[in-house]
């Protein structure tokens, strides 16, 4: 049996929860004050997800364009996502919501621009 300590991020209480696991199976969650903590701990122990935001250089523009994953992607793929983004070359103009990199690292999630940059 293994134990994981997880801090709930859903409210300023910041409950510290202990999750007892047997392999991939969750046996018991303690330390949460409300149901939201348990749901969060379950997610964090099975498949933690994160939004990724970054900037990507644009040819002919001093200012890079800011981008985000349209929805959260698995936390384990953050570095791979950044690596994929470092290979992206963009040209002007770019509009907010334009797809910068489709289906990043096979996650099924697009990376989109969060700002408009005109020539």
């Amino acid at each position: 049996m293994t134990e994981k300590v997880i801090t709930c991020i859903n409210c300023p209480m910041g409950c510290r929860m202990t999750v007892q696991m047997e392999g991939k199976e969750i046996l018991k969650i303690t330390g949460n004050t409300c149901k939201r903590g348990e749901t969060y701990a379950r997610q964090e122990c099975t498949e933690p997800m994160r939004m990724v935001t970054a900037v990507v250089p644009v040819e002919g523009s001093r200012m890079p364009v800011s981008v985000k994953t349209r929805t959260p992607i698995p936390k384990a793929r953050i570095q791979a996502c950044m690596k994929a983004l470092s290979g992206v070359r963009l040209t002007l103009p770019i509009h907010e919501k334009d797809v910068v990199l489709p289906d990043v690292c096979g996650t099924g999630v697009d990376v989109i621009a969060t700002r408009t940059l005109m020539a």
Partner: protein
Amino acid sequence: MTEKDLVIIGGGPAGLAAAIGAWEDGIRDMVVLEREKQAGGILRQCIHNGFGLHRFGEELTGPEYAQRDIDRAKELGIPIQCNTTVLSVTEEKVVTCVSAEKGLEIIHARAIILAMGCRERPRGALGTPGTRCAGIYTAGTAQKFVNLEGFMPGKRVVILGSGDIGLIMARRMTLQGAKVLACVELMPFSSGLNRNIVQCLQDFDIPLYLSHTVTNVEGRERLTGVTVSEVGPDRKPIPGTEIHFDCDTLLLSVGLIPENELSRTAKVELSPVTSGAVVNDLLETSVPGIFSCGNVLHVHDLVDFVSEESFKAGHAAADLILHGAKRSDTIRVLDGEGVRGTVPQMIRRGSADEVRLMFRPAGVYKNASAVVMCGDREVARKRAMIFTPGEMAVLPIPGNKVAELDGDITVKMEVKA
């Protein structure tokens, strides 16, 4: 000298919301003056997400949030004059500003809204000893370099202060390829959100040193290293606890202060607690016709509340321009036990408008209530599982209760035994 009904200083989220509020009420003869070449304020460089949950019901990045207000202002036809720095404001409501395009301009306004935002405490405020070499920046300056100019200020980084901007920059620098060695916090707790501690530090195994500070910086031209020491309960370094880090960059994230130089030239009364103006429930300062909102009034953690407050300032300024001044006697709002920096500091006597008091708890209070007292009568109460200094508390007083107020009120924390 030109005449204008309304001049708004600052085109960040506060200035934009104030302008939209006033326009919706019928004001047309107005201008927003913005120093930078684009409107949007500090949000333009905050490319992470987490903005707008309260106001739009979805999580936006900073640039996306700012763009919504810029688009709305454009759609309405609100004039935003960028590349224009305001140099002074007087009590008589004369605004002096300068731009490359128009040179020096002097505008007399019937009403002015101050929305200049806040800035970070610079290094001078720290008193960290050591050499004065390159490689030391505020976290916000580094954020501007990385996110707006696409330039990385360094490769091996130590961050002093665990405020949210510092935490956000720890992740940003890591994702863009730097090694963040440590985040060092003087206090025994972080003032940043739990979410940022987990997602910006723990996700990347960046150690957080609580009750520690930077005691020496080394390097001649460029920073080469810093020494970090543990501090005792008196916050003084404990000899023998030194840890050395080889690094080329030190980021400072040690707090924000409202940018009130212009409020001073206008002789607006400032509060020593918030470092912002003293205002009434219409967000009007001690100088009639001058209003203040957003981070220049008090440092907010959520831009959603900045927008809410600033719409109100816009509506109030419009009312003054259209219907004339309605100055009345005021009652005072005082900070009681466990409460700091309540805004507004005054409420118009006889008003029947809802008032939303905002303040910072002085410490962490669990299972507590924030209570408003008028003499020994309870006026309003808000219960919560937790109040912390890192999160501004909002306590509404309904209009009918405001109408009944007959003397100064006090806001205080109450913990159930």
